[in-house]
């Protein structure tokens, strides 16, 4: 009388009622990092660099999870596909979007764009700071504050290649700011997309990113 045990994957066409903890922690962690660095912390300050380094960890963890994580967390569950993304947006405009087992194709493109830009912002931030850890940045700033300006001269930076280095840093600074602003712009679209999608689907997409609901978990 008992049906054969269903594999969890056979229900893959329904997005999870609760995303797994790695997805949730990396999502809200990265959101916090972005918002704090864009709004709260001063560019180049110890806190800014510290938040950025935490961002590196969260992003790395999420990317690893995209390879070894459960089915719906894997990149293969939401491959980047611009055509499918456009199709999905068209369906959304017509008010009857398709269901997917993970992010919908438009959401997937958004996720890759945000991760990619985060990588750019992090990389350019590292160039600007010469790859110094937050601890070193703090130490240097403390040294400068106490009047020892030599902390600003890094080994390997003195001499001929200094100009070249500065050129790179200026470029990095430009890219850093542009990419950071682009992230903020995309996040607005992202949140709007989540709201529209939730309305069209008739279910709250944010709840599975938070705690899920008791009802969902029992189901």
């Amino acid at each position, binding site marked *: *009388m*008992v*049906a054969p*045990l*269903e*594999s*969890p994957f056979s229900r893959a066409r329904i997005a999870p009622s609760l995303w*797994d*903890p*790695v997805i949730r*922690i990396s999502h809200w962690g990265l959101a916090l990092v972005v918002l704090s660095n864009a709004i709260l912390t001063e560019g180049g300050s110890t806190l800014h660099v510290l938040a950025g*380094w*935490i961002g*590196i*960890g*969260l992003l*790395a*963890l999420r990317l*690893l*999870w995209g390879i*070894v*994580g*459960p089915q719906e967390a894997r990149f293969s569950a939401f491959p980047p596909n611009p055509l499918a993304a456009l199709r999905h947006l068209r369906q959304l405009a017509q008010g009857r979007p398709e269901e997917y087992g993970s992010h919908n194709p438009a959401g997937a493109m958004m996720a890759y764009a945000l991760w990619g830009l985060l990588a750019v912002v992090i990389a350019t931030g590292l160039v600007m700071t010469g*790859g*110094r*850890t*937050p*601890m*070193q940045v703090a130490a240097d700033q403390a040294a400068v504050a106490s009047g020892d300006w030599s902390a600003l001269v890094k*080994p*390997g930076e003195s001499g001929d290649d200094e100009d070249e280095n500065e050129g790179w840093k200026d470029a990095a600074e430009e890219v850093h700011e542009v990419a950071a602003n682009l992230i903020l712009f995309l996040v607005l679209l992202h949140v709007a997309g989540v709201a529209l999608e939730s309305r069209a689907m008739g279910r709250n997409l944010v709840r599975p990113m938070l705690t899920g609901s008791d009802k969902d978990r*029992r*189901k």
Partner: protein
Amino acid sequence: MTGRTPQEARRRQTAALVAFLLVQTLAVVFFIGDVIGDLREDPQSIHFIFEALVTGALTLGVVFGALALRRTIDLLRAQEAALDVARGALSDVIEAQFAAWGLTPAERDVGLLALKGLDVAEIAEVRGAAQGTVRAQLTRIYSKAGVSGRAQFAAYFVEDLMGQGLKAQA
């Protein structure tokens, strides 16, 4: 539901693994940053080989941590799926049995509530009926089922669940 035992334990295990993985990943990132910094200041450092080994070990630790977490999550989901199946199957069993006994729709409702552990007063309240009515319905249900009373009535299905439950785990 009183599904506390293995599932609760696995959930707690999941939370612990996640916390561990997070701390480990952040530690690796900061450690690698530090190593690269050291390396650039003193490329000939004898530290290097040692630090490269530690970095490799830490990174492997993160990967294995992620794999362990993945396995725990998979197990948790498989258990939940099995429980769903058992629950769905049990209600199928109950439904079929009620039909076989020829219970009326009202008797089926009362029977289900009784199986869920409600007493006569509670069933009466849920159904907005008099307690005397519910008691009479229960008596008819027990007699149609050929059981002596509530305990035997419930046991009838529990036995089914235990037999099937073992199979569903396999």
